[in-house]
């Protein structure tokens, strides 16, 4: 499909969702009080939510954002908007940057936050959202400056960050220190031999349950201890405590944080837990999720396929 056809399709979806929302009986009396920009944001939020978990969620969110909200993203245009509308535009930039982190979206957030600050109207949650976005974009220097300028917001201290020049572009993670608020960039090798890449998060109860089941099974434990790489999505959670706690309890399978999505092309959808089975760097199987009854049989089958 040509890109203009794709754009038309995405926008058609957006405007269909507007009509669907207007027809929806679940609309609240307060929705009638929304401004047109706020209504656009509500529809955008719904579209993003409906596409959540789909492989092209970032592209769709970005295209709709570009068509509907980027028109507001200049200092003079923002000045002409009401406060409620600036808040809605900030939320739109925040949302699109979450799914499609980019310098362009961070720049828009910066503009909106500056306008909110100029009006003396930036709230703690907006301050916190922008700070989280800087973390997700790995803009550690800007985070530190922002933290210093916004002491009263009681933001969490920015982590110390150590970069290494030779890590390359693929399979890059932030290694969480066991004892301090420190992140170190490191490259993981999943391109050689048979490997299991586990997308997981220490606060995800499905990941916790999966790890419990793996540790309770001697054979699975052996395979995972020797051949797995545990990586969390590049999200905005700044609290490294759960990673340290996990590391303490699961020394052979610590969870690192993906530097960004782009360096992990094997991951189509960042959901936890997802077990990706690789042989010489090629994906040969996948097991998604951890239901109450577990997924041990599926893991055994995929492990056999990669000869572990």
């Amino acid at each position: 499909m040509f890109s203009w056809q794709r754009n038309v399709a995405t926008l058609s979806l957006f405007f269909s969702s507007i009509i669907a929302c207007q027809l929806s009986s679940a609309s609240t009396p307060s929705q009638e009080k929304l401004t047109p920009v706020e209504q656009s944001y509500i529809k955008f939020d719904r579209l993003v939510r409906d596409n959540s978990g789909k492989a092209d969620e970032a592209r769709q969110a970005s295209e709709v954002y570009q068509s509907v909200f980027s028109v507001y993203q200049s200092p003079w245009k923002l000045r002409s908007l009401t406060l409620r509308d600036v808040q809605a535009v900030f939320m739109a930039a925040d949302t699109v940057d979450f799914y499609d982190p980019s310098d362009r979206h961070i720049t828009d957030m910066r503009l909106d936050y500056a306008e909110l600050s100029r009006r003396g109207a930036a709230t703690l949650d907006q301050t916190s959202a922008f700070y989280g976005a800087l973390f997700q974009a790995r803009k550690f220097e800007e985070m530190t400056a922002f933290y210093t300028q916004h002491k009263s917001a009681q933001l969490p201290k920015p982590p110390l960050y150590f970069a290494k020049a030779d890590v390359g572009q693929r399979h890059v993670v932030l290694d969480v220190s066991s004892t301090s608020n420190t992140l170190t960039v490191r490259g993981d090798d999943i391109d050689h031999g048979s490997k299991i890449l586990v997308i997981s998060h220490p606060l995800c109860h499905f990941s916790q349950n999966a790890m419990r089941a793996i540790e309770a099974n001697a054979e699975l434990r052996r395979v995972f201890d020797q051949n797995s790489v545990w990586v969390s999505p590049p999200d905005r959670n700044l609290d490294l405590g759960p990673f340290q706690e996990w590391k303490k309890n699961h020394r052979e399978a610590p969870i690192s944080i993906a530097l960004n999505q782009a360096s992990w092309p094997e991951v189509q959808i960042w959901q936890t837990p997802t077990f990706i089975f690789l042989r010489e760097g090629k994906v040969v199987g996948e097991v998604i999720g951890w239901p109450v009854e577990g997924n041990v049989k599926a893991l055994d089958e995929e492990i056999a396929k990669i000869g572990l």
Partner: protein
Amino acid sequence: MRHTYQWRLTQMKVTTSLLASLIVLGASFAGLAANSPRVSVPASQDAASALIAKEMGTRANIDLALAPIQSTSALQSYLIAHDSSSPLNALSPLKEALFVQSLQFDHRGLAAYNYGPLAGLSSDEVFEILSLFGAQSQTEQVLEKTGTHTQTENLITPNLIPLKGFRCGGAHTCLSDSTAACTGNC
């Protein structure tokens, strides 16, 4: 009977302290009776943590079972009927619309929600809104501006801390979602 957040917090702290004290005392007496140095304080703390987690989990399940709104249809009825006394009135029109739009239910009740619109509310306001859905035990987590949890909290209630920035996925996963929270209830 309508309880405030502070009332509930005090009640939880008292219960937690009592449970922990009883277990540590029990372990100490067991150690004395057996005259064995092997009964260690860490072991009794683990037992206390497990029991407290179980107690809090049970409490959260009871909250869910007693919640006024446990399904999408109950939510729709509530939205049509709710008046000026509704806790949802503490939210701006945009935030109310966003919060309502984000609510997801499963067979046990509330499974996921967008906590973002609740930021900036007082503890009582958040508590009262979450009480509509039986999720009031998550008030403290929602209130946190920083998302920082201490290790002790993680140890005691590992399944009760919602994973922010994710929602419950259909395939028994937590899935990226900008301002939702993936809870132990899905």
